[in-house]
């Protein structure tokens, strides 16, 4: 039997991974009957409590990997396991923050946040109490009765964050959650995310195409190859000390070194993806 101090002394990598993707391939059938390979032979492990960022050019299958982990989609080949259990149906204990607003516009902030506990069969009074607590934690106290359209983009993201975290997920999947926000709001939200993550310590998979954001947030940055059929190209450990201040960490010498290293790896993939997207134009000229 392992005791807590023993657990902490064990390097993260040797623990049973929270998320384990083994040689995963995902194909989609397009309406005209042909198939499209989103990811091919992808292998990835994320330890419990680890913050993993995935970067890669548009169309490399970043988001697909999240839908596989969450159980919204099944892999065409390979295996997806969470805490050692193969994923069947919606993965229990998972939270998902979507790129676009997914808070329900017809529910107030309070009702949106209280949805998770209510769906999980917690009685109304406790669900409301817990929702109020999480609304306060994400800094929206006083806005409980507002509808989403009455909030700013940043505030709606806070609602989404509270909505996911109230279920205390062991795994938090984030699909470019802050990409629609302006630069300043985005940095503020990133800081808040790190603060909240530090409290409950879920394993995070954070998909972005902003390398700076990835390095500032993550313990490990995974670079994916250009799609279709993207896969893991390289993995970089981010050894920047925590707690981090997102707005300032990019002036850190180590940050700049890491950025250069990872960009070196990412650049060729971005170039490939770009030339693919402009191929027809290139031929014409």
């Amino acid at each position, binding site marked *: 039997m392992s005791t807590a101090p023993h657990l902490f002394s064990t390097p993260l990598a040797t623990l049973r991974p929270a998320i384990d993707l083994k040689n995963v391939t995902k194909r989609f059938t397009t309406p005209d009957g042909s198939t499209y390979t989103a990811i091919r032979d992808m292998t990835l492990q994320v330890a419990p409590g680890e913050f993993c960022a995935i970067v890669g050019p548009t169309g490399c299958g970043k988001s697909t990997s999240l839908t596989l982990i*969450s159980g*919204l989609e099944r892999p065409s080949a390979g295996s997806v396991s969470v805490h050692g259990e193969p994923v069947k149906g*919606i993965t229990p204990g*998972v*939270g*998902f923050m*979507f790129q*676009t*607003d*997914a*808070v*329900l*516009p*017809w*529910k107030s902030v309070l009702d949106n946040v209280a*949805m*998770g506990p209510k*769906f*999980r069969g917690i009685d109304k009074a406790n669900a409301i109490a817990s929702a109020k607590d999480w609304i306060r934690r994400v800094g929206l106290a006083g806005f409980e009765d507002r*509808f*989403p*359209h*009455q909030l700013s983009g940043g505030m709606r993201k806070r609602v989404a964050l509270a*909505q*996911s975290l109230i*279920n205390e997920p062991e795994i938090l999947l984030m699909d470019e959650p802050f990409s629609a926000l302006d630069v300043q709001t985005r940095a503020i939200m990133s800081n808040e995310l790190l603060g909240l993550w530090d409290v409950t310590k879920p394993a995070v998979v954070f998909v972005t195409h902003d390398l700076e954001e990835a390095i500032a947030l993550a313990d490990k940055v995974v670079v994916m190859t250009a799609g279709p059929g993207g896969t893991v190209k390289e993995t970089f450990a981010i050894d920047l000390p925590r707690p981090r201040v997102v707005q300032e960490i990019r002036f850190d010498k180590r940050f700049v070194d890491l950025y250069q290293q990872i960009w070196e790896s990412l650049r060729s993939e971005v170039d490939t993806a770009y030339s693919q997207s402009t191929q027809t134009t290139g031929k014409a000229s």
Partner: protein
Amino acid sequence: MSASSVETTLTQGLEATIAATAHSRTRKRRLRVLASQLGLLVLLLGGWQLGVGSDQLKVVLYGEPSGILAQLITWFRDGTAIGPLWQQIAVTLEEALIGFVIGTALGIVSGIALGRIRFLAEVFSPYIKVLNSIPRIVLGSVFVLALGLGIESKILLVVVLVFFGVFFNAFQGVREVDRNFIANATILGASKWQVTRHVVLPSAFTWIVASLHVSFGFALIGAIVGEFLGGLQGLGELIKNAQGTFNANGVWAAMVIMGIIALIAEYFITRLENRLLRWRPPQLSGPEL
């Protein structure tokens, strides 16, 4: 008084003047619209009255505004040839409302069931297409033959007319639900029924409520046509009666009553719409083009 406070007072005064000007401009505009609307009404009714003139044949054929007014007064005071006026209104309203409620409920339930359950949609779609393509008003004759001259045959006709509009909107509304909303609720732990209840239904209501405006019009048409085809009472029967006695004013007077009923119904539907869809952002005013 210090210089800065004088300045503040001046600014406040200026703001107040600007606000007052804007306010009076809006009010003037509203008055102008109202005056034009009234003018148009006077022009139409006056033209009609003058056009018919004192020619008795034309009065019989086309009716005249003063005659319509007189007819309405007579009906209210002395009742109609087939009974008191309020009774005719009540019968028609009863048919329209009962049919409207049943048709709407059936439309919503089946629209959502078929929208959510793909198998059902595939099985039923050819039947629905066929039913939708036939002119359903003809079914009125079938219903009168089968159910007789009472209100049941009219209610059934109203149900059939209302059902399809609501059904197609509910079905489409379910199809248009943002996939992200469903994915989000599912991951938060919602069962299929909870997704329907909390995500699909509220989202589809935008479509369903829009169809209610048109559907109530269909409900009135169904009730009136049902009475035309074979009835004993109601506004449709009243119109048929007036037509049979060459009373054009009577036909028009019944139409005025129906118009008022439709307007009142429209008012309540709009209130329902605002109540159900209060989560929607208000329409922002853009530049007028």
